[in-house]
């Protein structure tokens, strides 16, 4: 038992709990905040995994931008509370069952079928973060330049799309 493992376990519990909280909370704002917590734990995981850049990006983009956006819309629509459920009573048990099956399958797949033993045989891997970051940057701007550029166009398109979608027509009542 070392510190890392304990940290991991604690954080794992927190992550799962916050996900559960997201699932179960009736209030959308609470759900959003739970999700923020989840993102934060995952950011710490990234750090544990030797990816500081990704961790910071996670906090900045996900927790900082995306969740804020979510909260904005929640506030805008006043969707804190929702009326009681109607329709599809059978959805919930079936969904739970299917999710469980999915989980079991995923587990089976990963641990029995794929030869992870070779990979898993190497648990102790030290990571040089500085070298990793340099390699990341080098790769991004050389080998993966095209996806980089395309992503920028994607963002542009998203921006334009959002504005066009939500633009009110002239003379239309608000």
């Amino acid at each position: 038992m070392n510190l890392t493992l304990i940290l991991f376990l604690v954080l794992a519990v927190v992550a799962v709990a916050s996900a559960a909280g997201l699932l179960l909370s009736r209030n959308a704002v609470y759900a959003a905040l739970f999700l923020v917590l989840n993102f934060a734990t995952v950011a710490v995981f990234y750090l544990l995994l030797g990816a500081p850049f990704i961790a910071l990006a996670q906090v900045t983009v996900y927790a900082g931008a995306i969740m804020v956006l979510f909260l904005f819309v929640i506030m805008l629509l006043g969707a804190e509370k929702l009326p009681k459920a109607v329709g599809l009573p059978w959805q919930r048990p079936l969904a739970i069952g299917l999710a469980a099956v999915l989980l079991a399958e995923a587990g089976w797949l990963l641990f029995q079928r794929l030869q992870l033993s070779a990979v898993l045989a190497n648990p102790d891997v030290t990571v040089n973060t500085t070298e990793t970051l340099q390699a990341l940057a080098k790769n991004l701007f050389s080998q993966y330049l095209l996806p980089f550029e395309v992503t920028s166009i994607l963002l542009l398109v998203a921006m334009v799309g959002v504005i066009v979608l939500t633009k009110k027509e002239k003379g239309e009542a608000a």
Partner: protein
Amino acid sequence: MTGSIPLSYYLALSGILFSMGALGVLVRRNPLIIFMSIELMLNSANLAFVAFARNIQSPAGQLIVLFVMTVAAAEVAVGLALIVIIFRNKHSINVDLMNSLKG
């Protein structure tokens, strides 16, 4: 730090989070919560990517995560815009009420 976490732990966690996200998509009626569950699923996938990247010493895994994040951001923006529009028309965001495809 010495004694890193075995890969399998990370993968197990990723799987659990993914399933919970899927469950959330299916069970909740608030489209915003559904959206958030989708983000959770994406997030768990990112976690798996980074774990594998560390394990096989490949920067490609982290790069993918970068791109996924970008795309997720764009997607959230557009999705929320759509939800806003729907709310404008229906004055409710109960997903179950959006059943015009019924038939």
